[in-house]
């Protein structure tokens, strides 16, 4: 498992284009939204939570096409499945490396973007916290879509349509958690709901990911 994570990290380190565009997209999305909405500070502050969450979702979803695809094309996934190693470990290693490579940079930049949009420092940290709490659910649903589409060369739009319904509850509770975090405690209803969604996404997502990868590996006639 460590070896798998280390391998993904090395690949990401060697190839900046695997994770840097996602980060740039995140900032660009915010900037373009501000230009579209107009620079009035009060409106921007009200919309900041929703905008940040939207930018985050899209920058994760647009990753879908290369999360499993390269491993699938080079035969790496097939070797893992043939080697008799635990598939659970493989999926968890993948989730951890997605978190480290794709989500950590976004988590670091969220308070800065929040600051630019006129949020108080505490509200910016609340945003980061809400994303951090929701991270497992986000990652497992995105990975599930990536696994289903891992043989598809062009999967951008279908990935959005496929994964967004599953992300809607996370979006709803994530935005609500970020907004409530400055008024109520850490143990608010929204945080608890997100934790529950995490559990569901893991128990449903991991078998679904393995089954989808298997279906994509097997040379069906």
């Amino acid at each position, binding site marked *: 498992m460590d070896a798998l994570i280390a391998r993904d990290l090395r690949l990401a380190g060697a190839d900046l284009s695997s994770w840097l565009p996602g980060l740039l997209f995140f900032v660009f999305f915010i900037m373009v939204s501000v230009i579209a909405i107009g620079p009035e500070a009060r409106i921007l502050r009200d919309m900041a939570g929703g905008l940040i969450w939207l930018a985050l979702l899209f920058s994760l979803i647009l990753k879908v096409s290369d999360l499993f695809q390269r491993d699938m094309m080079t035969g790496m996934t097939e070797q893992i499945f043939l080697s008799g190693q635990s598939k659970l470990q493989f999926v968890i290693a993948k989730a951890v490396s997605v978190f480290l490579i794709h989500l950590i940079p976004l988590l670091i930049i969220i308070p800065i973007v929040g600051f630019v949009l006129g949020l108080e420092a505490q509200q910016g940290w609340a945003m980061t916290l809400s994303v951090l709490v929701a991270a497992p659910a986000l990652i497992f649903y995105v990975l599930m879509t990536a696994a289903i589409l891992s043989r598809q060369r062009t999967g951008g739009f279908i990935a959005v349509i496929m994964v967004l319904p599953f992300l*809607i509850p996370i979006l709803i509770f994530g935005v609500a958690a970020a907004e409530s975090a400055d008024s109520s405690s850490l143990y608010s209803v929204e945080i608890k709901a997100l934790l529950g969604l995490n559990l569901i996404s893991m128990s449903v997502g991991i078998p679904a990911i393995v089954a989808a990868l298997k279906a994509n590996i097997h040379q069906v006639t």
Partner: protein
Amino acid sequence: MINYLANPSNFLRFQRIATPVIGLVIFLTSLALGLWLSLYASPADETQGEVVRIMYVHVPAAWGSMMAYTALTIASITSFVWRHRLADSAARAFAKVGIVFAFLALATGSIWGKPTWGTWWQWDGRTTSMLVFFFIYAAYLLIWSMVKPWNRAARLAAILAMVGSINIPIIKFSVEWWSSLHQPATLSYIGAPGMPSELLRPLLMMAWAYASLFAWASLMFIKADVMALRARRQSSRPISSVTIKKL
């Protein structure tokens, strides 16, 4: 019964009788009876007036789309566990009918919304969750049209349908929670217990008509799918050539 129908040839034989019976006899009679009950024999609503009759086409469409997803889930589990070809055809047929019902529910709801709410579209809980439901059907059908070959599409579509069936209640409740945060409920729950039987009777009759329409359309779609597969298999069979030499 199920075992007998699981054979495609037996299924084709069964549907040759079942399709006209369900389509012509059950569907048309229940539709005629339902329309008569709902348009003529039922009273107009005290506050909504004649407009309430839209309910008789709107509510059964919403129920029908949920019924279609239940059937889709069962067919997907069957397909995933036993890899049965007919279950895939069935799941796909259910999804096609389901997405049409979901669209009908949205469209009639919008038409109903104009006179009662004063707006064509309202982002209330049930409208929004029905829209999400529509997109889940769309994603399911997109897999079928995108992924080749057929067996792989069947596996992946079944996985998505099963994960969706677990998530749909969560999505529905979270959307309702979301809309209750942003606005008060605008419409009391129609179809709640305590609905007078003059309104309930035409509603149930129309629901029965929609259910038989669902059965009829699904049978037709499954038949078309089985036939298309057969045709493809026949055309892909290598042409054998035999030359006989006369000595």
